[in-house]
């Protein structure tokens, strides 16, 4: 009897325990996201005013930004079930049936002569919650920029990373002239390739643009007068200044994160070496001293290191040296050709040009693991640089023998050509976040 009673007690107890455990124990690990962009719908913004409204489709700019990032997939306008302009007009269930995660609605209201107010709201369709809502004043000229800033807000809300759509790229174009010869130009455009403006042009080569950390100035190499010199130019005022014109090579300027110095390649003492020029005092300090070629310096975001290309080991490879001086240290070991380094904003990776077989492609060197990942599939991809939020890398690629701007997401998933430019495009460089904006 007692035995039976005991066993019954145990049975009940163990069942209770099992149940208690089971309730807490059922754990299902979720490790795979859908391998596609986050579904989002940016409903065309409504026009609250008389007349036909604006020519510029602000929502379309936002859509394009989000698409280009590779992180989102927009619902085409033709598939939209409704065109709400405010949150109160949204039938969330209807949007949810389209398997949408997020919805952006907005209105544009004229505020007077060439002044507008854009109001937009970002919703979580599933939870029927507003995640963001802003009113922004703008002008006709800044409509695209405002659209990029809306895209930045959405991007940041949905990725946890600051958006970099309202930034710029600088790049060199080469255009054949009717009379023979070429016009070489240094251009600045929005990060989507629109609003391109030439800030300097020359029949002689222009090379190696580099943004100042405040996004106001560009340093570049110009061969005007037949010999290379390094110039610093304010992109808004056009004011410029030659900062280096030494005998031999004056090349590859790179702005220090504090904006006070430029790293350069000079061959004034024989072989090309890396130097650091103090822009305020004009003082020049030699950083490397090797009979091989040392060139293409790039500052780490914390300013402690300068990465550069050197063929001191036989072929071109990436090295780094303390920016205060010291011993160079090789960083890239895989492949016979790695050149043109540029740090990620977090300083944990370097993008570079890596030769794969006979192709030159964009590589990503993980500084922790030293692993190299090839992100592109072109034949002559060159000049990679990170977006300031680290989400993408802009580079130049050859399409039918002509240079074009392209961008790739850091995971290599999304590659896109940017807005078509005139001429042969080379040496793009992504701007930092602009302090002016």
């Amino acid at each position, binding site marked *: 009897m007692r035995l039976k009673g005991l066993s019954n007690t145990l049975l009940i107890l163990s069942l209770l325990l099992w149940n208690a455990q089971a309730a807490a124990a059922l754990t299902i690990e979720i490790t795979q996201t859908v391998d596609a962009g986050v579904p989002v719908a940016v409903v065309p913004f409504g026009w609250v005013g008389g007349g036909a409204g604006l020519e510029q489709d602000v929502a379309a700019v936002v859509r394009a930004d989000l698409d280009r990032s590779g992180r989102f997939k927009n619902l085409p306008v033709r598939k939209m079930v409704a065109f709400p302009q405010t949150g109160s007009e949204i039938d969330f269930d209807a949007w949810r049936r389209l398997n949408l995660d997020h919805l952006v609605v907005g209105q544009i209201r004229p505020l007077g002569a060439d002044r507008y107010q854009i109001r937009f709201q970002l919703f979580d369709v599933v939870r029927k919650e507003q995640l963001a809502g802003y009113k922004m004043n703008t002008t006709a000229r800044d409509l695209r920029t405002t659209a990029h800033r809306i895209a930045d807000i959405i991007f940041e809300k*949905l990725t946890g990373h600051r958006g970099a759509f309202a930034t710029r790229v600088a790049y060199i174009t080469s255009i054949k002239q009717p009379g023979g010869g070429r016009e070489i130009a240094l251009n600045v455009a929005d990060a989507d390739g629109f609003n391109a403006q030439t800030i300097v042009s020359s029949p002689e080569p222009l090379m190696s643009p580099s943004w100042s950390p405040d996004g106001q100035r560009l340093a570049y190499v110009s061969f005007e007068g037949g010999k290379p010199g390094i110039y610093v130019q304010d992109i808004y005022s056009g004011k410029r200044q030659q900062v280096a014109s030494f005998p031999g090579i004056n090349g590859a300027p790179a702005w220090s994160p504090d904006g006070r110095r430029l790293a350069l390649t000079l061959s004034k003492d024989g072989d090309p070496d890396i130097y650091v020029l103090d822009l305020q005092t004009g003082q020049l300090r030699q950083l490397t001293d090797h009979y091989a070629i040392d060139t293409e310096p790039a500052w780490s975001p914390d300013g402690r290191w300068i990465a550069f290309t050197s063929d001191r080991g036989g072929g071109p490879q990436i090295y780094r040296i303390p920016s205060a001086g010291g011993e160079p240290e090789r960083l890239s070991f895989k492949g016979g050709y790695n050149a043109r380094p540029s740090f990620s904003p977090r300083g944990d990776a370097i993008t570079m040009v890596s030769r794969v077989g006979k192709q030159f492609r964009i590589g990503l060197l993980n500084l922790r693991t030293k692993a190299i990942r090839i992100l592109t599939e072109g034949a002559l991809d060159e000049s990679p640089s990170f977006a300031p939020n680290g989400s993408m890398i802009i580079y130049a690629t050859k399409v039918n023998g002509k240079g074009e701007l392209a961008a790739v997401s850091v995971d290599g998933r999304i590659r896109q050509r940017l807005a078509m430019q005139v001429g042969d495009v080379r040496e793009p460089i992504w701007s930092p976040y602009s302090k002016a904006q």
Partner: protein
Amino acid sequence: MLQLFKRTPAALPISLGGHLLVLGVMAFGADWGEKPKLPGNQVQVIQARVIPLDQLRPAPEQPPEQPPAPEPEEEPLTPERLEQERRNLEALEQRRAAERERLRQLEQEKQALEQKRREAEQRRRQEEERQQALEAERQRELERQRKLEQQQREDAERRKREQAERQRREQERQQQEAAERQRKAEEKAARRQAEAERQRQQAEARKQAEEAARRAAYEQRRTETIQAYSGKIRQKIEGSWYYAGYGEKLHCEIRVRLDQTGRVVAAKVVESSGNEAFDRSAKAAVYKAEPFPIPEDEEFIADFREITLPFSVDN
């Protein structure tokens, strides 16, 4: 001495008489008086000078009680006087003989006394011995009596003990027999009970085995169901999960409570990744996966009432 005797012929009888007296005293004195008390059996040796008798001429006997005759005056040797002398001698001889007789009688008496004393002593000793023998006999008798009594006592005790022992044994035997009877009865009862218990336990074990088998089958079905539906749920959530972030290793945990139909009653971020967008994307995936594929089987629905969902990315 000899010169003395030559010079004074009268000295010889005097000396002889003295000696005889001494001898006589010595001869009788010991018997007359009290016997000297000699300590123990120590022998007193009397030191005496032995005089060889052949060197001696007979000395005139002289009664010890009689003082020595005065030195006779030199008288002429007349017949009367001779005659007188001879009579004196004869009288002396007679006294001496009487004395000897008396001594002899004394001796006899002494011997008779001694004899009597010895006989008395003998009788006394015999009486003593007889008494002793009697006493010994009495003692022996007493001893015999004592032993007899002892023996009897012991016998009585032994008998008593034996009796007690017999009684004890008997009692024990009876007790043992009673105990044995009881034991057997108990054993029998216990066997009956054990058999009953065994049968009950067998039945119980059978029941438990069946129960265990049923439970094992249930658990297996349950495990399989849980695994199968966990897989379905995972697929559905992963098919709903879009995350726009990049370049980070993130982990959050969402606790979900479902109703009977798999609808999400509540979803709570119990462990945040620190990235709000990531947490939200995971939560959205949970809601987009509604209704969760859960078993239709009533008994397993409880297992899916609360689910922990760890979300992680490394990109």
